[in-house]
């Protein structure tokens, strides 16, 4: 195919294509062993050097931000292991390694083992947050597994004493040397048979070889298997061991572990004091609230008000009394006048008046029916005549009709 058909790259385009292929992942995160030459610590903070062996050389750059974690300064001729990602320096079309870590090759094998175990355990989930146990807020008894000699135990005890004195169960533990890993495992297992509610696993700083027992798998598994929460405090702040990853909490130093293990007594004093003040404050408020309410109630039962009410009632009673009297008087009055009226009427219709004027009433005997007509009687009937002062018994001799009108 001619170039007309295939097209033409610019240099830069070509470089970018190559870069794309080389940096696609296959050459990321690679460890390379070699010897440093042409080391240059640039004023920009970036480090440039060539890594080489008998037959080849490789351009390397370590940018400032990665170099910050270097625990030693690389030198010309130094045998090292470097960790980095393949990169293309576009301006020169040159491939190079972007270095993230440099380690001395003397312990190169240890590093490899460390990384391998770390990856394996991470895959298994030994470092997962969901397996982390919560530390007791107020531990009653703390198990401390560390060397009987050395400053670590002293540091831990001192800090614990200062912050919050508790019971401590110390178990002498070998933290360096051939049998250290077994000793650590044994201590963790023994402490799990006691009543401690927290374990501090501690060791001072040292080289990678010194700290090695804390990178061993049996230690990692013992920590993971512990039913009691473990704070690991191994080495200095910058040292990370596998134990640190598995432990429930990692402390940068043994003193820091002690600080994490217990609350600060002074702070607790202050907290109790604060709560107490709050308690008193609340109660004061509550009481004043009730007092106000009581005052409010008292206002409702004011003696003045009561008196006024009583006076009111008394007046009402007087009023009623008066009305009652008036009523009775009126009733009597009405009755009296009605009586008089009746008496008058009675007088008017009384036959007694009529008798006195000379009238009399005749009644037929023996029925004493009043005689109103000559038809009421017959000749020889007996009649009685009522007059003003008595009665007269008569026999009827005769009767005659008279037309008065």
């Amino acid at each position, binding site marked *: 195919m001619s170039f007309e058909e295939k097209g033409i790259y610019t240099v830069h385009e070509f470089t970018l294509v190559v870069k794309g292929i080389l940096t696609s992942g296959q050459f990321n995160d690679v460890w390379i062993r070699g010897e440093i030459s042409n080391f240059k610590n640039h004023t920009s903070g970036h480090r440039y050097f060539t890594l080489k062996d008998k037959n080849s050389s490789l351009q390397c750059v370590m940018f400032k931000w990665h170099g910050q974690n270097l625990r030693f300064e690389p030198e010309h001729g130094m045998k090292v292991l470097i960790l980095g990602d393949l990169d293309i320096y576009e301006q020169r079309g040159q491939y190079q390694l972007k270095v993230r870590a440099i380690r001395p090759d003397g312990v190169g094998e240890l590093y490899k083992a460390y990384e391998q175990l770390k990856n394996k355990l991470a895959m298994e989930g030994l470092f997962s947050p969901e397996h982390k146990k919560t530390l007791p*807020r*107020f531990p*009653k008894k703390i*198990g401390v597994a560390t*060397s*009987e*000699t*050395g*400053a*670590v*135990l*002293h540091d831990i*005890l001192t800090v*614990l*004493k200062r912050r*919050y*004195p*508790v*019971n*401590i*169960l*110390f*178990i*002498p533990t070998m*933290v*360096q040397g051939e049998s250290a890993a077994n000793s650590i495992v044994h201590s963790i297992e*023994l*402490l799990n*048979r*006691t009543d401690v509610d927290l374990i501090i696993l501690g*060791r*001072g*700083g*040292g080289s990678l070889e010194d700290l090695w027992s804390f990178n061993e798998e049996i230690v990692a598994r013992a920590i993971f298997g512990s039913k009691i929460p473990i704070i690991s405090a191994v080495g200095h702040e910058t040292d990370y061991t596998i134990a640190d990853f598995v432990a429930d909490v990692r402390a940068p130093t043994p003193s820091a572990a002690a600080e994490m293990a217990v609350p600060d*007594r002074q702070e*607790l*004093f202050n*907290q*109790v004091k604060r*709560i*107490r003040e*709050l*308690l*008193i404050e*609340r*109660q004061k*408020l*509550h*009481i004043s*609230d*009730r007092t106000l309410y009581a005052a409010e109630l008292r206002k409702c039962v004011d003696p003045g008000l009561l008196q006024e009410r009583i006076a009111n009632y008394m007046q009402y009673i007087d009023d009623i009394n008066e009305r009652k009297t008036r009523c009775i008087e009126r009733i009597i009055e009405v009755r009296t006048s009605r009586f008089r009226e009746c008496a008058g009427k009675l007088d008017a219709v009384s036959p007694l008046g009529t008798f006195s004027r000379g009238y009399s009433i005749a009644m037929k005997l023996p029925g004493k029916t009043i005689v109103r007509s000559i038809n009421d009687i017959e000749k020889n009937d007996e009649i009685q005549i009522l007059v003003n002062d008595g009665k007269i018994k008569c026999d009827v001799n005769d009767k005659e009709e008279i037309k008065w009108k």
Partner: protein
Amino acid sequence: MEMNFEDKLAELETIVEKLEKGQLSLDESLELFEHGITLSRECNAMLKNARQKVEKLIEEDNNLKSEDFALPDDTIKGHNF
């Protein structure tokens, strides 16, 4: 069994909360208040009386026992492992 510091502190916090809600009768609140003050005194006493006691764990024939332990002064200045 006597309550530990944590429980006492928690109860103290609960009491303050209850008082804050303020739906209590005066009698109830006085009772709670009194209990709260007692608890705070006990908390203080517990803090004040806390003492460090260090024991060393010893394994003997697969049995565990412990004995009092004190740091020898010279190891304090000893080198750091």
